[in-house]
């Protein structure tokens, strides 16, 4: 074995034996540094004869290049191993649980969500959202809606009253959202298309009745809308709201003082556990009351019932929320039980819109 071969073997052994970047640097300096073993040999080239140089030049340069390469390779390996060791030492337990973000914790009450859903559907059909006060006059709540004074239909409303004032007038809490019909007709010119969601009150309390609940009123006044339109609108609404392909509706003649003809609407459904499936089964579930606005009501609003006509409908928001989302008990809506709200409530960014599906 030549000296060069011996030298190369020694250097390679030193490179392989270097255990960190500092050691490799020492090896590099010892071989390729200014006074390194290979550098020294290279320096000797100048003193050689051309013939010697012809042989030794390529041999030494070759040695230098191989040593450099081996140093680089070893250095890279050591660096990688060093990094790997550091990273290994930095490992953390990623299974540790984190706090829920506010977006995960916040909830929208089902009533707000359902009102937004209803608004999205009717907004698409050109219905504006109208409002009226919770504290109403007897006139707006009853008389102007064609409830004669003393009529038994008034008594069926279980009204909350305030104490009479000096003139003997007593205000009340609206028993339905229908006063908004009159307030709207008195302030807007037809054509009118509105919905009016809001709180309503009746002095009644059991599993299906609470003294405060929510209704949405609908009103269309123009010169041509009739029960056929009403039927279509309600079918479309139910289909869109319950997010089903098809609903089967049954309209039953009924009575409300402020509509004539009046009807109640049932939808065909089947109860499976706590679910209500629409469009199948043999049960009929009453969901709303409706009818053509009574000529007297149109007249009270200052319009001519032979020219203007239209329809109105009203339904319980809490009730349709229960049907769609399966809450078993109305009273829980107003109990603010965090567990209930967390379960039945909606996430802050669940924004109902027709383009993306109401609830998806």
């Amino acid at each position, binding site marked *: 074995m030549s000296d060069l071969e011996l030298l190369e073997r020694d250097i390679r052994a030193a490179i392989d034996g270097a255990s960190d970047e500092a050691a490799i640097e020492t090896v590099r300096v010892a071989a390729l540094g200014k006074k390194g073993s290979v550098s020294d040999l290279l320096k000797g080239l100048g003193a050689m004869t051309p013939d010697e140089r012809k042989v030794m030049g390529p041999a030494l340069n070759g040695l230098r290049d191989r040593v450099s390469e081996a140093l680089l390779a070893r250095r890279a390996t050591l660096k990688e191993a060093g990094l790997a060791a550091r990273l290994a030492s930095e490992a953390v337990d990623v299974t540790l649980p984190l706090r829920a973000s506010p977006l995960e914790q916040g909830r929208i009450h089902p009533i*707000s969500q359902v009102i937004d859903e209803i608004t999205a559907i009717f907004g698409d059909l*050109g219905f504006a959202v109208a409002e009226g006060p919770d504290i109403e006059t007897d006139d707006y709540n009853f008389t102007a809606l064609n409830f004669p004074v003393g009529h038994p239909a008034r008594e069926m409303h279980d009204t909350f009253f*305030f104490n009479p004032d000096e003139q003997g007038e007593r205000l009340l809490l609206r028993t339905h959202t229908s006063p908004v019909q009159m307030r709207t007709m008195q302030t807007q010119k037809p054509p009118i298309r509105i919905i009016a969601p809001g709180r309503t009150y009746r002095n009644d309390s059991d599993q299906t009745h609470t003294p405060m609940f929510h209704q949405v009123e609908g009103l269309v006044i123009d010169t041509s809308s009739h*029960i*056929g339109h009403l039927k279509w609108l309600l079918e479309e609404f139910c289909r869109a709201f319950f997010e089903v392909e098809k609903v089967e509706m049954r309209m039953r003649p*009924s*009575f409300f003082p402020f509509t*004539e003809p009046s009807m109640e609407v049932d939808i065909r459904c089947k109860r499976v556990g706590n679910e209500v499936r629409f469009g199948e089964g043999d049960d009929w579930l009453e969901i709303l009351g409706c009818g053509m606005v009574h000529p007297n009501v149109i007249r009270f609003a200052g319009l001519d019932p032979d020219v203007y006509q239209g329809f109105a409908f009203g339904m319980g928001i809490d009730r349709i929320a229960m049907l769609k989302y399966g809450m078993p008990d109305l009273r829980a809506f107003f109990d*603010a039980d965090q*567990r209930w709200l967390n379960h039945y409530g909606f996430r802050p960014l669940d924004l109902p819109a027709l383009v993306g599906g109401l609830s998806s």
Partner: protein
Amino acid sequence: MKFTLSWLKEHLETTASLDEITDALTRVGLEVESVEDKAKLLAPFTIAYVVSAVQHPNADRLRVCMVDTGSGDPVQVVCGAPNAHTGMKSVFSPAGTYIPGKDITLTVGTIRGVESHGMLCSAAELELSEDHDGIIELPADAPVGMAYAEYAGLGDPVIDIAITPNRPDCLGIHGVARDLAAAGLGQLKDRSVAPVEGKFPSPVDVKFEFGDTPALTPAFALRLVRGVKNGPSSEWMQRQLRAIGLRPINALVDITNFLTIDRNRPLHVFDAAKVTGDLTVRRAKEGESLLALDGKTYALDPSIVVISDDKGIESLGGIMGGEASGCDENTVDVLIESALWEPLNIAQTGRKLGINSDARYRFERGVDPAFMLPGLELATRLVQELCGGEASEIVVTGTVPEPHLTIAFPIAEVKRLAGIDPTEDEIRQVLTALGFQVSGNAPSLTVGVPSWRPDVDGKADLVEEVMRILGVDRVPSTPLPKSDNVSKPVLTLAQTRTRRSKRALAARGLVEAVTWSFVAKSVAEAFGGGKPELALANPIAADLSDMRPSLLPGLLQAAQRNADRGVADLALFEVGQIFRGTKPSDQLTAATGIRRLSATVNGAGRHWQGKAPAVSVYDAKADALALLDALGAPVDKFQIVAGAPAWFHPGRSGTIQLGPQNIIGWFGELHPSVLEALDVSGPLVGFEIILDAIPAPRARPTKTKPPLELVPYQPVTRDFAFVVDRKIEAAKLVKAAQGADKVLISNVSVFDVFEGASLGADKKSIAIEVTLRPTQKTLTDEEIDAVAAKIVAQVGKATQGVLRS
């Protein structure tokens, strides 16, 4: 209203099945609430003969019976009834039968080693009575194998329908039959009444004495039937009354109840022997009272119409008779009253006295005035049939109002309002079948309204009649014309704010609650409310008596309920109405939130990354300001002023305002005394923003945002720490610093607040970081030093603060 199928068929000639009838009832607007069909329910229960009943070999109290069911070999049944004995007839149900009284389905079983193939039943097991004492024992002639329900006359289904207040005519079965006949379910039977000739003048006369007050009865008819024998009424009548839940009493009383249901004609019968002199119909006098048939004594006043004789009041007109002149088995001469009353007056009296009688229910809705006399004749006939006797002539006082309403009915109204297009003939047929007098021809009919339809007074009512009888399902679904344009926004500013508030607060981790609009009076008072005009006259409960002046109490109480259930860290909000007065403009919309214990925006409770601190006034402030920012309110223009209304901690609360007259809302820790009064425990912080108080954004012609100018020069920051009096508000110091150079200073933030003995008593240090953003060129050190000196000077001037050494 309840009636049996057989009773209905007294008025309707029909071959329709029960299902067809109930479907039709609902279809025409007489909603079927329930149908009780015992024949169907009890079909498997048959009459059987007990061939033998012997002691069970292994049980003292059981017997093994061989039962002849009328088909095939006798069946072996193990029976535990003490009265089971050889040779009896009873009711048998085979294996596979559903037993309603036990809510089980029978199976073939082995009872103590003996097989049993069915059951002999008690009345309780059939849900016919409470009688558990033994199995039903039937007379010896009961036909074996016959359905028991049929044998016992239980085969008559009972239909219960809901009658809307506009249809008093259907509070009589005859009216229901008329609707069904019009709907094509059969023929309405002619049940008109032939008068009964009076054999003698009525010995009792009737006078109206209303003085110069309005008469409360339009007409009153009376007749005497003498020599009656008042025993039980007929089997049939008793069965009908019992089937609908009325207790048969005696023939005379049963007849009045029967006609109430049969014809919507309430009547009253007086025992003539207990009536002294003539009858007077008048207003009660103050202080008078009556012991009525329900056994209660009612105090009366002049708003109430009564019937009195020479002794005093005998009956409450149209509502209930008096105990003293009631008929019993000793009655020999009976006075039958058939009268008309003022519906409104009856309703008021009924309400005032709290009496819900069948008579009141009908008179306040409206009975057929034209049937006053026929009703009396029919009653006379029934009395004579069941009790014998001789009738007097009829005394009529007052006048029965004649029906006079005719409606001009352009038949195009049906199409206009209902969207269906029936022929003139169809319309005519429907109306005629319902008893309307139709004359004239299209385009406009003249329609006379029958006396029994007080609800019909215009064209729209006739459209309803036509539509409901022809069937609402005939109305074709017709698309509502949609706008040709893209939908415009429909929500008002207030509505948008309400919606956005909810999303913004939920996005901060608060959970939306909906709480009652009413609170207890003391609670309303504690939160700035409690005005007498906002107190309900008839609250449903004492703690739900006053309209809420704030959403805070509802949320605070909800927080406590949750804490009691183990949810102690809780952030709740509500966006809803609050009431400052009774006018519509006094109803405001508030967005309110609370945080309890350690429910901060970043989480609650203990955690390996660090325990959440107890909530503080600053958490509430952050919620309030984040909400205002989400609503696009001009937050930088709002002032934050120390202090808030009395329900907040005086030193840890603030008011957000645009000047003292324009308060946007409050935030802070809740006052401990208020929490104590509510029986609520903290720590609790909250805020309330009045959405209506936020100024509306200025209307602008375009949606363009102001241009953004980005400068290429490096911003520079400098820190300053000032020692100021403890009372100095940070906002004042920040404002002074900001004012030092309005062009260069782009931001001032407080990064440290420190109080300590080293600063001296009542002193604190506030450290700020000031950002200078050059707009023209990079700043030189001299320029920076000049601004710094100005900042120190301005802060010194405004706060007497000095740089901390």
